[in-house]
């Protein structure tokens, strides 16, 4: 089973690298969907099949499709000269080195932490549901309020104001 984990992880990492280095927004989003599918395989292998299904349906199916629709609406295919200038090695080398230093720091911290081994038993989705609606009931309601605020905010921000060409044409 281990080899499947490594294959899915390598696919996810490679497609994420392609997604962040691609110039074309649509190609980049498609690579990102591939990366999310790889992560969902990893979720399945980590004994969380329900979460894997949610990842495919909500992340790859809903959020990324929203991204693709917006980038098609804005009609951004290839980027302008400005971004090309920013993608020169001189510009990305320092942030990458700093992020790599943080990454090595994290790995060293992980290696120095003792790992306690607990014997494994598979968590069923039923347990997740019971925990979600008993212990975390308040958090579920707060998430619902957040979603409603998100809907109203997105509607308000996304609504297009009518352009009036002359003030005589303006409605009272």
């Amino acid at each position, binding site marked *: 089973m281990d080899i499947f984990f490594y294959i899915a992880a390598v696919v996810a990492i490679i497609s994420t690298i392609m997604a962040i280095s691609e110039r074309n927004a649509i190609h980049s989003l498609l690579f990102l969907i591939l990366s999310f599918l790889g992560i969902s395989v990893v979720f399945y292998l980590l004994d969380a099949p329900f979460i894997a299904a949610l990842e495919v349906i909500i992340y790859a199916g809903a959020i990324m499709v929203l991204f693709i629709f917006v980038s098609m609406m804005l009609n951004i295919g290839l980027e302008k000269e400005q971004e090309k200038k920013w993608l020169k090695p001189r510009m990305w080398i320092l942030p990458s080195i700093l992020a790599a230093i943080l990454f090595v720091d994290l790995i060293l911290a992980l290696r120095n932490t003792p790992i306690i081994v607990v014997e494994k038993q598979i968590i069923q989705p039923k347990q997740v549901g019971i*925990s979600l609606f008993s212990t975390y009931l308040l958090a579920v309601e707060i998430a619902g309020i957040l979603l409603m605020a998100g809907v109203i905010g997105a509607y308000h921000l996304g609504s297009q104001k009518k352009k009036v060409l002359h003030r005589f044409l303006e409605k009272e």
Partner: protein
Amino acid sequence: MLTIPVESQLLFAGILFFLGLISLLVRRNLIFMLMSIEIMFNSAGLVFIIASRHWNQPDGQVMFIFILAVAAVEVAIGLALILQVYRHFKTLDVNEINKLKD
């Protein structure tokens, strides 16, 4: 059953997180910046799932569901803002969007 040590699973999540961080620092297009935030959200969720499996607790998976809700709201609001910015400035380059400064 996986027999992979938990360190290498966390390493995978860490690699994804830092790829997202690099992308957020380097890219100057608003859509790409929102995408890299998504990558980082996802790797944080992956860490929750790994921890949930390691400790045999369902709480990690519950947290992933909350992360999913927050990510969905964030994307909806962020994309609406991006639409407005594009309508106003005709560009998505964050270096061009500095009208507040002048």
